[in-house]
């Protein structure tokens, strides 16, 4: 074994009871190298890293040889593990919001690692903390030491996590989806930081990700996993340019492509017209002091949407995309004039508004949360229909359910089953069928594909396009991923902090973005691939 080799797994097998999560995985990481493990959710990429380092709960069955820095780590005592993890091996997890303890200041949490592994205290520890925070390029280091986690943004917290991970000069850094929970514009910075740290400290970096775009730019070697098995491995350019396995090809090709069919051009009134719509949330009034000004989530903006057209609303999290869409379909109170099919929507309330609702429907992001686990699929789909059309008899309702299921390419006989029996993509289809059964003319799609794997995402986009062509639906398509938006939208509206940054025809805007913000969004999406 060369002394370049830092971490090696040979025929690693992990079982939960009778179920194998990882089968005979071979993997190695050299010093100063980034190795990426890619695969769809459930492919065993996280489990293999956690299992190899003894982080899975007792009762898990782990076989195979594991080496770290030339040392067999297959049979370590808990005490030896603790010295290794956090000392020579650093971890960065996916969720920066929950991996910092909210009750301790940043300085205290960093100091704890330093004290445990290096015995640093007092001034020495403080100096080292400042050094680390500077290394991860955090601003105003002096103030940050006494800051609390909730005062930092997601990107800043992830930087603190990285600072903690590298605090003890680890030889190996394991980053498990380090940027998935972050905004697209922040993702690039974090990965650039990781690259830089790796070079400076000659670390090995094991990057676990489902994002091929990211992997392609930052990894030296790639390991493609599927259902717990290694499908393919090799240097990144080779794997991406000449993939050997059919599955790898499928993953690479799964980047959404194509364009929506052009909408019918007719001079009618727009289907949805918003005039100076804004959303503001009032803040609580402090005792004996005047109420602070309301928080403006969406500044006054106007937009129009024609029949059969898709308007993409783009922006990073917190930019007001979902708030705007919810306000347009009157799920949130807003000011301004909203017209749907020529009729004022903002003045309606109660029953009159409820009757209008069948004309516009919404599909949410999370396919696991948007279907009631207690109802069979047919009941979920038909609920709105039964309410809005109580005159329909059972046979007609059953017919409409079957029709809606056919529309989303699901077998018509699956109505008796419950949501948990379906995969994420299928659930999202059920959610779309629930919206379609009311025969709406506008569908709000709130990040409908971002919880799904790339391959499933692509199928869903194709389905949405064919549904649009068949029924002449208008879509309000919300997403942070420009690759998906490009495949769906005719026009794009870019939002930042509740303000419109720019808007225009999709292709023209993407080819020639006017603002730095839009360019950053484009950079962060897979659109920028050569």
């Amino acid at each position, binding site marked *: 074994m060369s002394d370049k080799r830092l971490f090696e797994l040979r025929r690693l097998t992990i079982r939960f009871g009778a179920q194998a999560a990882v089968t005979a995985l071979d993997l190695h990481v050299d010093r100063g190298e980034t190795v990426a493990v890619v695969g769809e959710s459930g492919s065993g990429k996280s489990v293999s890293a956690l299992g190899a380092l003894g982080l899975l*709960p007792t*009762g898990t069955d782990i076989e195979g040889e594991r080496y770290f820095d030339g040392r067999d780590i297959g049979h370590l005592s808990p005490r030896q593990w603790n010295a290794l993890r956090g000392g020579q091996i650093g971890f960065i997890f996916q969720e920066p919001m929950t991996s910092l303890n909210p009750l301790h200041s940043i300085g205290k949490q960093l100091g704890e690692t330093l004290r445990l592994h290096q015995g640093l205290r007092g001034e020495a520890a403080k100096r080292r903390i400042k050094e680390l925070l500077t290394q991860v390029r955090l601003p105003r280091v002096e103030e940050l030491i006494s800051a609390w986690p909730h005062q930092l943004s997601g990107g800043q917290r992830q930087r603190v996590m990285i600072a903690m991970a590298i605090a003890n000069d680890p030889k190996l850094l394991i980053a498990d989806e380090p940027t998935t929970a972050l905004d697209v514009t922040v993702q690039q910075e974090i990965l650039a930081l990781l690259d830089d740290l790796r070079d400076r400290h000659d670390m090995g970096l094991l990057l676990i990700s489902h994002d091929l775009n990211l992997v392609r730019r930052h990894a030296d070697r790639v390991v493609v996993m599927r259902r717990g098995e290694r499908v393919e491995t090799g240097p990144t350019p080779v794997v991406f340019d000449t993939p050997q396995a059919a599955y790898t090809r499928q993953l690479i090709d799964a980047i959404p492509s194509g364009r929506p069919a052009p909408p019918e051009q007719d001079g009618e009134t727009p289907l949805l017209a918003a005039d100076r719509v804004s959303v503001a949330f009032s803040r609580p009034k402090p005792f004996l002091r005047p109420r602070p000004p309301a928080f403006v989530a969406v500044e006054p903006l106007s937009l129009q949407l024609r029949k059969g057209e898709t308007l993409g609303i783009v922006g990073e999290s917190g930019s007001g995309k979902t708030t705007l869409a919810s306000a347009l379909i009157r799920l949130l109170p807003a000011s301004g004039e909203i017209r749907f099919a020529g009729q004022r929507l903002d003045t309606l309330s109660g029953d009159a508004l409820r009757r209008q609702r069948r004309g516009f429907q919404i599909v949410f992001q999370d396919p696991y949360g948007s279907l*009631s686990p207690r109802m069979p699929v047919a009941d979920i789909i*038909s609920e709105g229909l039964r309410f809005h059309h109580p005159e329909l008899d059972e046979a007609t309702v059953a017919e409409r359910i079957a029709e809606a299921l056919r529309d989303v390419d699901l077998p018509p006989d699956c109505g*008796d089953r419950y949501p*948990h029996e379906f995969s994420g993509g299928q659930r999202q289809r059920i959610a779309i069928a629930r919206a379609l059964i009311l025969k709406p003319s506008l569908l709000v799609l709130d990040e409908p594909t971002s919880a799904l794997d790339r391959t499933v995402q692509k199928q869903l986009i194709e389905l949405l396009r064919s549904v649009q062509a068949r029924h002449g639906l208008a879509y309000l398509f919300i997403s942070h991923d420009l690759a998906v938006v490009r495949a769906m939208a005719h026009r794009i509206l870019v939002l930042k902090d509740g303000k419109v940054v720019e808007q225009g025809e999709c292709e023209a805007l993407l080819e020639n973005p006017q603002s730095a913000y839009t360019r950053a969004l484009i950079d962060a999406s897979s659109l920028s691939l050569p």
Partner: protein
Amino acid sequence: MTSSHRRRLSPITQRRLQVFRGNRRAVWSLWIFGLLFIVSLGAELVANDKPIVMQYDGHWYVPLLVDYPETEFGGFLPTTADYRDPVVYEQIADNGWMLWPPVPFSYQTLDRDVQGPVPSPPGSRHWLGTDDQGRDVFARVLYGFRLSVAFALALTIGSIFLGVVIGGVQGYFGGKIDLIGQRLIEIWSGLPVLFLLIILASLVEPNIWWLLGIMLLFSWLGLVDIVRAEFLRARNLEYVRAARAMGLPSHLIMRRHVLPNAMVATLTFIPFLFTGAITTLTALDFLGFGLPPGSPSLGELVAQGKNNLQAPWLGVTAFVTLSVMLSLLVFIGEGLRDAFDPRHILTASRGDRPAAIPDSPRQESLP
């Protein structure tokens, strides 16, 4: 539920039933308690001072259901026949026959033929002895059990109804309704329940309906907090928002989508409400502020046990009855709680310690 043709249990319910059935102590407790309650429901057939059916002069009589005057059986008074009266008894025995229940005493029958001083010890005539007024303890326990359980049942159902409706409205609509409602509830819960009951006892003759009403005014308070919290949580679930976007009215959304979530917490609360109701009724009876004198009550039996320490069967009977009843309820409650605990479901279905496994689907979607 609007659907009529699909009636199979939802997978969540099935899993819960399976977990409950897996808890043998809870299942046995449920069976035993159910059996005891059913037997006590037919208390009139088990312990009564009237025959169930009888024949006199070739005619059929059902004294259990119909009051016959004594003159019917050759007596002199036009009042309801006392079948335990030696004169009437012999008259009927000569001219027909009577079918008596296994225990020929009701809860308020004074046994005048009892041997020795009252309270008399257990024997073949009185299985659990008599109390200090010569009434059969077994009959009183049987009727008292029924009364306690029925009282607790009515109180629980009433509390759940009030608690779910009030908590649900507060949680679902939130905002001002919630704020004002919570303050009113805080004031209301500051009222001393026992004092009110004691004051009431001096104003009116407290019967079971008065007690039920007064207790019901306060017993729902504990439930409101849980139901409200569940509704607050559930109203922002995506499938609830989807239902709102579909144009469903609030009452339908609450009933169909939010209530099932809140019922989990409510159902786990039921055993506590139930045992609480039984102990409160017993305590009031023990203090003498409860049911009117003469009613079959376990609390009164406890008081008698305390006043007649020379007759230990009174205290022992009361103790055994109450502890068996409450223990059974606690065991059932334990089973219910485990069945509704999502983490416990994982354990039960996997057979090992619950574990957080990365990349696994969330809890609802596990098979």
